[in-house]
């Protein structure tokens, strides 16, 4: 690659231009928000009041007049009245605005300067530089900053500007962490790699690319830090640190406090101005954060509100059967699991709904192993979760019929479903490690659901016996172990034990071997087969892997884009797949031996699996 040529700025300029438009757009969107525009206006008005101080006041802020001691607000020439020394409160307030604004500027600038410089360096260089600077800044963050700011007052000779510079130094760790984390996140992104390949120097990369990413968050925290600096300056002046000749809101607050029994109204003025300044800054920061978060922010918030509880399936309005279900052979009643015309939809940002399962029919008979096969995004996991009642609450689940072991799951309340779970139906997840709570021992987690149905001692004995049964070498030890102390294969055995301990009639396994080492996969499949025979369970095995299906299943259901593609006995489908899609999936078995990744998603497939 060529040596960097300063005149060759095509790549960075392109990025810069893009970022510039985005930022200009952000600023315009900020102005369009009532909160953003309002707080900007308030801020501007207050700052301008301070700048016009010489024009707007009639007395100097330190001028005292014995005739006007404690003059009430509205006295001619003394718009806000006078304090106990006969000084013009209006003039003092104007003067104090400037002190506050300068404090905010100094405090925030020092913090941003130090934090950004070191954050950029640490985040970009990484490794030792990062470790060392992070260590220093973490220590700095735990400094009792206010104590030091107070104790170091003699050094400043009473100048609040120097005090604020010291305070800004202590604010720097916040900016440092912000910048460092953002840079670390950005560092490995493609466009930075591309810039490096094209021969840009490290410094150019940092200043040109990364800076645009961190700018927004820095502006937001600058608003908060400016507010903090104003409050601390007021606090210090209130204590009487610094020159008493400089009027400031802290000094005014102190004067009013001393006068609180006689003239409580004098406390209002410094409080109002402080509140206006701080409020405008903080609300401006909030508004800018909302603007940067973009239109997605609203949706995110809605999602998070519904983390507790799960979606309750509803009966479908009208028994409309889809074209696919008409082709499904009728198996009659009496199946272990009967699903008819299952639909799962999620609300999307524009208010419409996106269907991820579209009228699926599914049947599992007692003692039968059914494979539910499809690529990621085909809706197979959504189908499994809707049977388990584990879909997030914003999901809309409906079906003509959804029945497990004779009990309908439709329109049932959460408690009824919960009783079914951990009893009649159970679940083996894909990723064993993340499905165990890291903070509790394996034993206590497996016991939790059981304790409702049997005495503690009995439950423990049952779990220990099962741990042995699923091939755990030392059950009592594993019982007492934490998840991080066992291997992934062991964890999956543990989860299988947890799933079958209640002797369920239907076991739903969601890609139970995908996350495991190849050597362990076969063992886990054998275990599932053995347990299925011992307990006579029906099994719904969700997988993208036709190899697993061939190994384990009696019957297979192929799904794509939320719809049923074809179904039949495993032998028939393998020998004579009628659909191209099924052929592709079968052909993919060979690839599985080397890669363990999900099957390639079709263009329609999206990440909702």
């Amino acid at each position, binding site marked *: 690659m060529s040596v960097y040529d300063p005149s060759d700025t095509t790549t960075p300029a392109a990025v810069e231009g893009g970022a510039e438009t985005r930022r200009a757009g952000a600023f315009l969107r900020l102005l369009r928000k009532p909160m953003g525009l309002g707080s900007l206006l308030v801020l501007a008005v207050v700052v301008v009041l301070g700048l016009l101080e010489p024009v707007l006041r009639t007395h100097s802020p330190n001028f005292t007049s014995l005739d006007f001691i404690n003059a009430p607000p509205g006295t001619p020439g003394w718009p806000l009245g006078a304090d106990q020394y006969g000084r013009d409160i209006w003039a003092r307030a104007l003067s104090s605005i400037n002190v506050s604004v300068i404090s905010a500027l100094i405090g925030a600038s020092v913090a941003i300067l130090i934090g950004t410089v070191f954050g950029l360096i640490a985040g970009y260089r990484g490794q030792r530089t990062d470790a060392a600077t992070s260590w220093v800044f973490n220590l700095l963050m*735990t400094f009792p900053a206010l104590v030091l700011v107070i104790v170091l007052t003699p050094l400043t000779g009473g100048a609040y500007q120097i005090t604020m510079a010291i305070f800004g130094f202590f604010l720097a760790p916040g900016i440092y962490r912000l910048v460092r984390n953002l840079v670390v996140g950005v560092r490995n992104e493609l466009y930075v790699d591309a810039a490096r390949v094209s021969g840009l120097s490290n410094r150019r990369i940092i200043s040109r690319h990364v800076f645009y990413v961190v700018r927004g968050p820095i502006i937001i925290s600058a608003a908060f830090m400016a507010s903090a600096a104003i409050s601390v300056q007021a606090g210090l002046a209130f204590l009487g640190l610094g020159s008493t000749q400089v009027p400031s809101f802290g000094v005014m607050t102190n004067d009013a406090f001393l006068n609180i029994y006689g003239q409580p109204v004098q406390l209002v003025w410094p409080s109002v101005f402080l509140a206006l300044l701080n409020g405008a800054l903080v609300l401006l920061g909030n508004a800018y954060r909302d603007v940067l978060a973009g239109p997605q922010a609203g949706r995110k918030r809605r999602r998070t509100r519904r983390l507790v*509880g799960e979606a309750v399936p509803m009966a479908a309005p009208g028994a409309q059967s889809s074209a696919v279900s008409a082709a499904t052979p009728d198996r009659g009643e009496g199946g272990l699991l009967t699903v008819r015309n299952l639909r799962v939809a999620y609300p999307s940002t524009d208010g419409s709904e996106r269907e991820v399962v579209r009228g699926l029919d599914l049947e599992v008979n007692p003692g039968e192993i059914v494979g539910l096969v499809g690529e990621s995004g085909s809706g197979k996991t959504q189908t499994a979760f809707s049977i388990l009642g*584990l879909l997030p609450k914003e999901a809309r689940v409906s079906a003509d019929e959804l029945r497990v072991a004779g009990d309908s799951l439709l329109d049932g309340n959460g408690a009824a479903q919960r009783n079914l779970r951990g009893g009649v139906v159970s679940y083996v997840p894909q990723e064993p490690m993340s499905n165990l709570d890291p903070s509790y021992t394996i034993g206590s987690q497996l016991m*939790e659901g059981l304790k409702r149905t049997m005495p503690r001692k009995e439950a423990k004995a049952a779990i220990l016996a099962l741990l042995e049964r699923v091939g755990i070498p030392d059950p009592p030890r594993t019982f007492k172990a934490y998840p991080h102390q066992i291997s992934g294969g062991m964890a999956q055995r543990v989860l299988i034990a947890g799933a079958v301990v209640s002797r369920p009639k239907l076991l739903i396994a969601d890609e139970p071997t995908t996350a495991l080492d190849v050597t362990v996969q076969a063992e886990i499949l054998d275990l599932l087969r053995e347990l299925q025979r011992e307990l006579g369970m029906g099994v719904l095995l969700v997988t993208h892997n036709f190899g697993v299906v061939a190994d384990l299943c009696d019957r297979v259901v192929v799904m794509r884009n939320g719809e049923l593609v074809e179904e039949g006995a495993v032998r028939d489908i393998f020998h004579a797949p009628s659909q191209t899609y099924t052929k592709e999936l079968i052909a993919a078995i060979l690839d599985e031996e080397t890669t363990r990744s999900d099957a390639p998603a079709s263009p329609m497939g999206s990440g909702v699996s």
Partner: protein
Amino acid sequence: MIVFLLRRLGAGLVLIFVVTAATFFLTYGANIPVARNILGPSATQDQVNLLNTQLGLDQPILQQYWTWLTGVLTGDLGTSYFTSEPIASALASRLPVTLSVVLVASIITLLLSTVLGIASAARGGWLDTLLQSVATFSYIFPAIVLGIVLVYVFAIALRLVPAIGFVPFAQSPVGWFLSVILPAVVLAIGGIASLAAQIRGSMIDELSRDYIRSLRSRGSSEASILFRHALRNAAGPALTTFSLLFITMFGSSLFIEKIFALPGYGTFAFTSTIQGDLPAMLGVTLFSVVLVVIVNLLVDVLQGWLNPKVRT
């Protein structure tokens, strides 16, 4: 765990050393006319020189530091230039006041922000709005304004609590509570919102994890999922936030004490700084850093108790 704690203790000792050394050289090196301040403007230069010699201020600064450092290691923080009271005992007598306020504030903060954070994570809606309003409110009104308003309303207008002063717990628990509750509330208002937001965020993270779904699939109750599992795992990050908050509250208490006329740490720090009472200023610094280190170590121990991975 032991190794981890020892490493953290080591970092804490470094912090104590660096901060006190920096403060020492900055303040002793600032050429504050200490002797002149003590003796007043009418004293002769000879008297000033004599006092400087007596206080050891005429010695090279490195030697003064060495004297101070060896003194500290034997538990001697020097004596105040102005009251001749040993710094250590002066600080010890003021610590209960400040700690009372900060501890009561911590309890209020922990209780309210945990409840608010969990409720807001689980239910959202108007609780989110409330949380944001409290946060904005605490930013808008600095502690001093809030403190004065509370004094005015509850102590002066309503006469519910004494406006000023401190009652030791041993003397009257009720009196003690009434004397610290207002300053504690002022400190807590600043912290509740940020801690609750942290708890809300980490609760939401935890509730969307796989193990929660697995627990549901095994029939765990919503209460157990929320409090036993999600909260326990969310507590780690929240605890770190709280340790920073504790330090901030300790700092803010320095401002608050003046409003409530509490004879605590802040009053002492302020007076000694104004007077240029160097040993007292260093004592205040040393005590503050030690407190920070102790709090951080306690948090580390709690993290180890919460998180089995840290323990092993």
